[in-house]
């Protein structure tokens, strides 16, 4: 099967199409935020705590900002952090998991122990603690914090897969033919793991989206920027529920869930394609 055949199978999968649609919708919103949002998100000139209206589809905040514009602009941040963090986490997982699985000897043992240690340490508390102590808080420190705490699960899974593939006959055959380690790793083993790596990316992306939102919500992120998480932070801080402004926090929460769901659907879709036995009849 050529690579474009895989894309065709992918698009025929219903979970994949739904996931991609949601993702594309968010991407469009993020790119065209200046045109989609009616106002600037930080503009505080509107009457505060207004309910849903034509002028303000999601009402206004306690400080008089338009929530709808905030949600639109927040898409950029949340999507960016989700994807980039997912990417970086996956790269770390692949590098460590692969090395731990393919090579034998002391390095592999140390790396395996490292993976297990990081797995045992609870992720969210670790993020919180690290975030609480970082002096500088910007988008990149958040991305790095989340990446450095979330790579262990993917690494472990990939390591197991490498161990299995290493023992497959076609890898042994390559060894006996005289192939270099480079060739075996990148041309024999890695292509057979792409499905798992892709699924791992989507899993990491979900984790990243939720972790970022969580951090912002707790006020441990960069509260000066606009993201779905910070909207929730301000909503919570300003007692949105008590003041009857339910849409202030439910809508951003919903968007977070939707983005997470999109990644989850894509994760399932890639799993199904990589392992034909999981495909629905």
């Amino acid at each position: 099967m050529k690579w474009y055949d895989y894309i065709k199978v992918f698009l025929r999968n219903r979970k994949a199409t739904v996931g991609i649609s949601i993702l594309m919708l968010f991407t469009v919103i993020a790119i065209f935020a200046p045109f989609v949002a009616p106002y600037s998100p930080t503009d505080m000139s509107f009457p505060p705590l207004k309910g849903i209206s034509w002028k303000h589809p999601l009402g206004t905040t306690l400080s008089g900002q338009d929530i709808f514009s905030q949600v639109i602009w927040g898409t950029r941040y949340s999507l960016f952090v989700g994807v980039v963090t997912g990417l970086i986490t996956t790269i770390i997982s692949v590098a460590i998991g692969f090395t731990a699985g393919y090579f034998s000897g002391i390095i592999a043992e140390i790396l395996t122990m490292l993976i297990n240690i990081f797995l045992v340490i609870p992720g969210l508390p670790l993020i919180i603690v690290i975030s609480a102590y970082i002096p500088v808080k910007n988008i990149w420190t958040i991305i790095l914090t989340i990446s450095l705490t979330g790579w262990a699960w993917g690494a472990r899974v990939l390591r197991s897969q490498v161990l299995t593939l290493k023992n497959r006959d076609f890898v042994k055959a390559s060894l006996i033919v005289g192939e270099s380690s480079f060739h075996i790793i990148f041309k024999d083993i890695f292509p057979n793991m792409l499905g798992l790596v892709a699924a791992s990316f989507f899993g990491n992306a979900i984790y990243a989206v939720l972790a970022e939102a969580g951090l912002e919500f707790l006020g441990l992120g960069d509260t000066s920027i606009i993201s779905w998480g910070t909207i929730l932070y301000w909503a919570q801080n300003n007692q949105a529920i008590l003041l009857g402004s339910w849409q202030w926090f439910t809508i951003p929460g919903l968007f977070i869930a939707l983005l997470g769901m999109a990644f989850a659907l894509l994760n399932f879709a890639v799993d199904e394609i990589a392992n034909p036995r999981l495909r629905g009849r």
Partner: protein
Amino acid sequence: MKERDVFQKETVLKVENLTKVFRIGGIRKKKIYAVNGISFEINRKEILALVGESGSGKTTVAKIIARLYKPTSGKIFLESKEIPDKLTKKELLMYRRSIQMIFQDPFSSLNPLYPVRYAVERPIKVHKLAKGKEIKTIIKKAFEECGLIPAEKFMDRYPHELSGGERQRVNIARALVLKPKLILADEPTSMLDVSIRLDIMNLMLDLKENEGISYLFITHDLAGANYISDRIAIMYSGCILEIGPSSDVIDDPKHPYTQLLKKAAPKPETGLRPERIDTNVDIPDLTKPPKGCPFAPRCPFAQPECKISIPEFKKVGNDHFVRCYIYY
């Protein structure tokens, strides 16, 4: 004819006292004595069958020769030159050109993501045997020599699009293309349909004649070994118990274990009245260091000395040797 054979007998491979002890378990404290002092020779244009049941260590022997495992002790000689434990990259590549391997599972021996021509192309590229258009010619020739005619019909297909027999032919083509001196065949037909096995074995016989390739043919099937090989070595629990020309070992088995194997194997041509076997079926415990003859617990002729030490090879015929106190 006989005189010529004696003079032309060149040894392609010789292994001397090969042993392999695996260490497994958490702190690496459990040992498995898989191979215990194996010695044999394979000559040019000769097929030596290594016959044994599962756990006998036969596959481990092949993997040691293929340098997938390091031997715990012992020596390997390729054309009378000793092969040291450490080889430079260039020396290793030369070694690989001389010794190739075919595996039991034809499907998992091929990378499922590439068309099958890739498998035969790689050895050519790695060993820089040809360039450009010549590569395709060599691949074509290898495919057709292995019975995949016309080559174009098969070259661009993926492994899952071929039948078991066709896949195994591709694997043989891959081994063949380097023109090796020895091919290690690890149960190459046990996962194939019965009606296809003979043709694959015939292919290997043809390649032996036409290309001068020797084989170490590993199998648990005594009848298959009898068909294809010139000599047979019977392996049990990491030791070779009997070795000799196939006709001698099969027609007149000397070791009690060989006799048991022959008794147990189906032989409908002898009248459909299979002989009764009375034996305990204890399998040898490979975690205990070898002491005495490994077959002694099951041997109907066991003597006290059999449990203490294993005898050396005793000559019982022309090139036919047994390790058994009965013949002392």
